């Protein structure tokens, strides 16, 4: 394990000016994966209810 790379919370957000890109990608990633899970689960529910 390496050391903590940043000194302060602001630095984590900012990342020397690159923070916007990194966190944007992180956000997109999070959102798309979560929505995929939600969409598939709701589809399962839909088709399951059709069987009953």
């Amino acid at each position, binding site marked *: 394990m390496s050391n903590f790379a940043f000194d302060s919370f602001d630095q984590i957000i900012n990342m020397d000016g*690159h923070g916007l890109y990194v966190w944007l990608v992180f956000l997109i990633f999070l959102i798309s994966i979560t929505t995929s899970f939600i969409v598939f689960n709701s589809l399962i529910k839909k088709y399951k209810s059709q069987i009953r």
Partner: protein
Amino acid sequence: MLREIINTVIKKFIHQFASPKTYFLQVKRLYPWVFYISIAIYVVAITWGLLFTPKDFVQGNSYRIIYFHVPASFIAQSLYAAMAFSSAVYLIWKVKLAAYLSRSIAPVGATVTLIALISGSIWGIPTWGTWWEWDARITSTLILFIMYLGLISLHNSFNNFEKADKLFSYLAIIGFIQIPIIKKSVDWWSSLHQPASITISDKPSIDPVMLYPLFLSIIGFSGLVACLVILSSKVQIYKREKNKNWIKDYV
């Protein structure tokens, strides 16, 4: 002789394990394990990668996008290979489950490819100064995305599932043969242009300290994608096996 043995083994395998019912029940048992373990791995990998690795000498902190981008683009391609493989299994041995699987991989593959594409182009802003470069990698990822879309829309446009499965499998296999050709040709084409100053493929230059979380993130993300594939295949099974007794009993 060998061929016969292989065939009988495969037939036995199909009858015992590759029925949608067995798959469904096994997967149901397995799913929570895969889900929680891969989430744990992925959270560790991302925290490690984003907060604890030193910043890259050349790219600064923007290189941290690698922990999202590389797993996505790696898995986007592996998923296509898996899909083509199960399509071939369907066409050769008429295993229904294989058709379900390849159909359910397609939307997940398209999503992952889209993530790879978007994260790649955002990464391009700080490194290349432009969000879109006609770079070989990006172009072939875009083509991969189009191929996934084509497969999905082909399958969706037929009401007869069996017909749709067959056509889907033909296209998936042809596409799989095409992928290396497309990659080669795009590489060749982009060599005309000025090469990008920093290529994403500069893996050897990466410090091992940065490499461990990368491996972890690939493993964790694969697990998450596997979960998505499982969910997607459940959708397919519910959709297509709704007249079967076992699923009525189950529900």
